[in-house]
Every structure is written in structure tokens, then in C-alpha cells.
């Protein structure tokens, strides 16, 4: 194996831009009063956790080469179901969370079926599912904005495990699950197959990967994690709102932004769940820096556009060089420090 090149150059910066982003945001926080208080850190990470789950789901799907637009609605429906089951049917919390997550698995299976069997493009299939889920949500809780308003477990998720640690239990669970998923994606056969299917579907199929099965697993993982996150968020904030995220900055948009900032390849096959997570933490702190929603939108948009432009132009340059003179491409790779 070649020695890993740890030169501090443009490529290194680019590969770790999520960390760079986090550092800059935290640095900017020094100029802000009351920014690094335990209360602030606790509330910022807690309130930002829902989007971390969505980012997790979105990233898994994007690695598999698909887009999952349902993430936001799955999590809202799961939150509604979880709180609704507890307050209406009186089921214990664990069962509620389990049922909500099963709902997520079901949605994931349907998504997977639509994409792999009916061969509908994932963007369109999940778009249609979005409408269906919205309808289901309104049918489940007619004329009531928040059917669940249950604060019995709210304290538990808000509190922290170790006294003095400024993180809520909810955020810690989020982090834990994301680390587990990361290990799964990197070190298990299925996880690596997801990368393979996303990178090149045909090659993966020729190599004997059951591509349909793997794609479905990616969708199920995505929906299930969003449902679990949504259910936990419902308990964390104590209430679920049917129109969650329909106005203002859509959580889906933030998840997409963070996925791109985290360096996940838009075409699939490359990316890391952890990087998305890091950039989502950074986005959460960024939102605490700017109190005005307008500025939040603008700054997030500028960063997203900068990342897309960067990726696109890099790709464009590569396509200019690639194939015309193979050696030139090697030279190019060497120059950017990847040779």
C-alpha cells in the first residue's frame, strides 16, 4: 500500500471541508456573547438533531446513487404516530418508537419497490411518495395540528447522561447511531455494496452484487433512520406538528446542503455519513450565529452554491483532461496530490 499523503494542500482542505466549516463557525462564535454556554450548546445540538437524522438518510441514499425526498415527511409522520400512539392508545414509549420505525421501514420498502421493480426514477418516485405521505399524515390527524402533546418523556431526552456534559441525551443517541451506521457502511459487506451500487450499477451487478436488494436496503435504512429520528424528536420536543418544515427553510434542503458540503458525490458511490453529520453540527451552530432567518438562508445557500460550483468546475476540468491524453490525466492527478 502507498503511504497516505497527508499534505496540507487544496485537495486535503477539500476532502475535509466539513471539519473546516465546523471550525470556522465555532471560531466565529467567539465573537458572539453567550455562545459557548452549556445551555446554548445543549439547545443548539438538540434542536439540530432532527436534521442530522434526515442528513443521515439522505446521505445513505445519495451514496447508493438515489435521492430520497421523503425523508422529511417520514420523520414528521413518525413523530405524529409516536406521540399519537402514546397519548391515544397509551402504549409504552419503546413500543411507540418501534412501531414508528416499522412504518419507516415500510415506506423504505415501498420506495425501494418503486425504484427497483417499477424502474421509476428515484427522484420522481419519492416525490410521489411525498404527496402520499402528506395525505396519510392529514388522514391520521384530521384537523389537529399536534395530536401528540406528551411531555412525560421529554425531560429524559432533554437531560444529559453525565452531569456537566453539555449535550442532551437525544443528541448523544443521534451521534451514537450515526457512528454505528458509519461503521456499518465502511466495514460490512452490505455497506460496501451500497457504495459499489452507487458508484457503478452495472459493474456492481456484473460483480454479483444483488443490486436491487442493495438499493432497497439503502432506501429502508434511510427511511427507518428518519422515522426513528422523527419519533425521538417528537418525544424530545414534546409535540409534533403536521406542517413541520413546510414553511421556512425546509429541513430537506438543509440535509441536502450538508450532504453536499460533507463531500458526498452527487452521482453516488462516494461520501461519508460522518462528514454529513459534522457539517450538520456546523449548520446548527451557524443558525445560532444568525438570528435572522433571511441571513441563515442566504449564508447556507452561498455555501451550498460554492460547494456545487467547486465540484462542478473540478469535474468539468477533469472531463476536459480525461481520455484525451491518458498520461496527462496522470500528471493532473499527481499535481493535485492524488497520484
Amino acid at each position: 500500500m502507498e503511504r497516505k499523503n497527508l499534505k496540507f494542500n487544496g485537495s486535503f482542505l477539500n476532502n475535509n471541508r466539513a471539519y473546516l466549516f465546523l471550525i470556522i463557525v465555532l471560531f466565529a462564535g467567539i465573537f458572539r456573547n453567550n455562545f459557548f454556554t452549556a445551555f446554548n450548546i445543549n439547545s443548539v445540538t438538540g434542536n439540530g438533531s432532527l436534521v442530522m437524522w434526515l442528513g443521515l438518510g439522505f446521505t445513505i441514499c445519495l451514496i447508493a446513487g438515489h435521492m430520497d425526498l421523503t425523508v422529511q415527511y417520514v420523520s414528521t409522520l413518525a413523530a405524529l404516530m409516536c406521540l399519537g400512539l402514546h397519548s391515544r392508545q397509551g402504549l409504552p414509549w419503546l413500543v411507540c418508537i418501534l412501531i414508528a420505525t416499522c412504518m419507516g421501514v415500510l415506506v423504505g420498502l415501498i420506495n425501494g419497490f418503486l425504484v427497483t421493480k417499477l424502474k421509476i426514477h428515484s427522484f420522481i418516485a419519492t416525490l410521489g411518495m411525498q404527496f402520499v405521505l402528506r395525505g396519510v399524515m392529514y388522514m391520521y390527524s384530521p384537523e389537529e395540528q399536534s395530536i401528540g402533546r406528551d411531555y412525560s418523556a421529554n425531560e429524559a431526552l432533554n437531560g444529559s447522561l453525565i452531569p456537566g456534559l453539555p449535550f442532551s441525551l437525544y443528541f448523544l443517541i443521534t451521534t451514537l447511531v450515526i457512528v454505528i451506521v458509519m461503521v456499518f457502511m465502511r466495514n460490512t459487506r452490505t455497506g460496501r455494496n451500497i457504495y459499489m451500487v452507487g458508484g457503478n450499477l452495472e459493474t456492481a451487478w456484473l460483480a454479483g452484487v444483488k443490486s436491487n436488494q442493495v438499493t432497497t436496503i439503502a432506501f429502508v435504512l434511510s427511511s427507518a433512520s428518519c422515522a426513528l429520528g422523527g419519533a425521538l424528536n417528537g418525544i424530545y420536543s414534546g409535540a409534533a406538528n403536521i406542517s413541520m418544515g413546510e414553511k421556512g427553510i425546509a429541513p430537506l434542503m438543509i440535509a441536502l446542503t450538508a450532504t453536499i458540503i460533507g463531500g458526498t458525490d452527487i452521482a453516488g458511490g462516494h461520501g461519508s455519513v460522518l462528514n454529513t453529520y459534522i457539517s450538520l453540527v456546523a449548520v446548527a451552530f451557524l443558525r445560532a450565529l444568525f438570528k435572522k432567518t433571511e441571513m441563515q438562508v442566504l449564508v447556507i445557500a452561498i455555501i451550498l452554491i460554492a460547494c456545487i460550483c467547486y465540484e462542478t468546475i473540478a469535474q468539468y476540468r477533469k472531463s476536459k483532461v480525461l481520455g484525451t491524453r491518458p498520461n496527462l490525466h496522470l500528471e493532473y492527478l499527481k499535481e493535485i496530490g492524488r497520484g
Partner: protein
Amino acid sequence: MKRKSLAILLSVVMVVAGCLAGCGSSGNETAPAQTEEESKPADSDGGTESEAEAPAESTGGSNLEESLALFDEAVASVMTTDGHPMLAPGVTFEVPAAEGTAEELEALDDSESAKWHYYEHLDWDESQDAQFPASPADGSKGKHVIMIVHGAHAWTTCFSEAFEQACEAVGMTCDIYDPNWDQSTQDGYIDQAINEQPDAIGVIPVSADHAAQQFKKITDAGIPAFCVNTTVNAEAMNYVMAFTGPNDWYQMRTLADSLGEAMNGEGGVAYITHNVGGSPYYARCYGPLTELAEKYPNIKTLDIQSPGFEAAAVKQVVADWITKFGDDLNAIVLADDSDQAIGTVEAIKAAGRDDILVVAAGISKQGAELVESGDLYMMSYQSCQGDAGLAVRTMAEYFNGVDISRVSYIGTDVISKDNVADFTPCQW
């Protein structure tokens, strides 16, 4: 090489964005926030700020006198755009006794007025009240308040500007946070607001149901919480220092009375609602519905729809109604006099049905124009700037140590073609 420079460009953009964040936020928000620290128990990073030369170092007494003078002047001089005093005193209403427990009422039919008792009246058990922070009674001058509104809308813009204007008039500084109609974002902003440690926090809750938790959080942090504009449920009132806002139910009932009279007590009415679940949803749909059912039993309710606030969508709903119900449709009650009214009037005009009476909750510029042209039969007067003014008035009174009423409503009126001139130019 190019790739490297691009990466550097990218990081420069990020650095600039980050610095902007730091400078922008520390520039315009923190300085006023820290001027008033002597009344607080402990300031975590007071050392970094040299606030000793701030004017608020003076003793409470003279500040109080100055504040009271400012207050009187503000009440007399600050006017709304339509020429009414902005900081007018609030109005209170009698709260009748509930006709049963909450569960019993919940089982009643939608058209029964009694069912909505707890929606209509702020009727709560005062013995359950939380421990509110006592008034500092050292004057409103130099106080910093944070107002968390519900979301971006023309109404909100007007409200925010009026709120800033009124705050300035009584010597307070304010920050306004806008969560864009999202409940979880509002939760986040409430945490942010508590973290800033202001002297008071005002909230327009996005969701009436969830408000209890939000106000509890603020009151638990030792900051007085003021509920503005949107009514909340009984449980939440235990954590609310004071509520100010319009009496939506009363207004809509008055409006419904006039409508019932104009319809001669018969015909069919259809309703277009506000955002499902918020307090205006109940007030502006079930307020007139129950009133009409009670006083004019021959008036039928045809349909209730929630197409949102898009003129085109409302237009389609109304056009479909006109085709579906035909001559049975005699009146439409709207929850909003801007987009909803425009869509409705368009649809009615397109169908050539000038016999349909339209009433709406107001008052916006578009609505006033429609009343003037006669397309809108009547609407309620809900002063947006008056709403902001009353909230500021109540907060200032609290800081001045005056006893404040826990619930106060803004003045109300019904606008028809005859008196619309008194309420123009419109506030928003």
C-alpha cells in the same frame, strides 16, 4: 493548481461568511443587550464587556421617572398609520363560567358555542400559576426585550416595525426573531432567546397546543413571558405573565351577527379557514359558525375548506363551490382578507354571482380596497400596529412596576363600506 486555488477560494468564502456572522451579530445585537445587567444575578461574561459607562448605571428612581415620562409621551404621540393611538390601553371582557368539564365540552357538537369555551375564553386556574419573576419596577428605559413572532408575512412585517417603533418610544431596545411558521424552529429560537438573557420575552406561538411547554421554559428560566396575538390554552396561561391581542372570537361573532342580519336569517354559508390548528382557525371558523347556528337556525353550513393562503387555490375552491351549490350558496366567511379575499372575489366575479356576501377577518390593504369597491361586504378591524403597541405597553407597564391585567384585548370594530375611510391608509 487550479483545483488548489478553487479550494482556497472556497475556504475564503467560508471564512468571510464566518467573520460576517461574528461581526454582524456582535455589532448590532449584543451591546444593547448588556446595558441593563445590574438587576441580574450573575453575568457569565460581564468581564469582557466594559459597560460601566452605560447610562443605565443611574439609580432606579430617576430611571423610573424618566421612563414614566417617556411612557406618557409615547401614549400621546405615537400613532398608527391609520390615525389611531398605537399604545392605547387594552380592553377586558367578562369570562362566563364553563358549562361542564373539558371532556364534557369536547363531546358536544361543533356548532354548539359551549364546546369552544376554552378556545374562546382565556379561562384558566390561577391557583396553578407558576412563580413569576417580580417586576424590577425601575422603569422601562434601557430594557431589552426579545420578540419571537410566528412567521414571515406582510402582517408580521407591519407588526415588527410597529413593535420596534413602540419600543423605541418607551426607551426599550428589542430583537425580533422570525421562525418562519415552523414550530421546531420556534422552539430553537426560544432557547436562543433565553440564552441571551433579555429582560422580557414576547412570543406569538405558532401552535396553541405546544405553547404551554414554550412558556414554561421561559418562565422557568426566570424571564417574564408575554403571549402576544394568538390565544393559548388554559394550561399555557399558567406560565404567561400577560396576554395581549385581539379578541378574535368576539370580533367574528359581531361580524356573523351583521352577516346573519344581511342574509335575513336564511341561506347557506361556506367557510374558508386559517391554518389548521392555530387559534385563528377556531375563532374565524367556529366563532361565526356557532353564532349563526345560535341566532339564525335557518342558516345552513355548506362546507368548510382549508386551501391555505394562495389566491389561485382559494379561487378554485370557491369556483367549485359555486358550481356545486349553485344558488344555495349565499355567503362566504373568510379567515383572511388579503389573498383569500382576492381569490374569492375573483371567483365570484368570474361566475357573475354578485349576490354572494363575503365577510373576512382583517384588516389589510387589499381587504380595505375590496370593502371600498363593495366586493367584500364587511370585515373586522384588527389593528396590527395596535396589537404591537398593546404588547409594548404591557411590557413597559410591567417594568414600571404598574399592576398589569393578565389578559387585555385590543379595541375592535366592524368595517363596512360606510366607515372604511376611518381605517385608511391601511397598516399593511
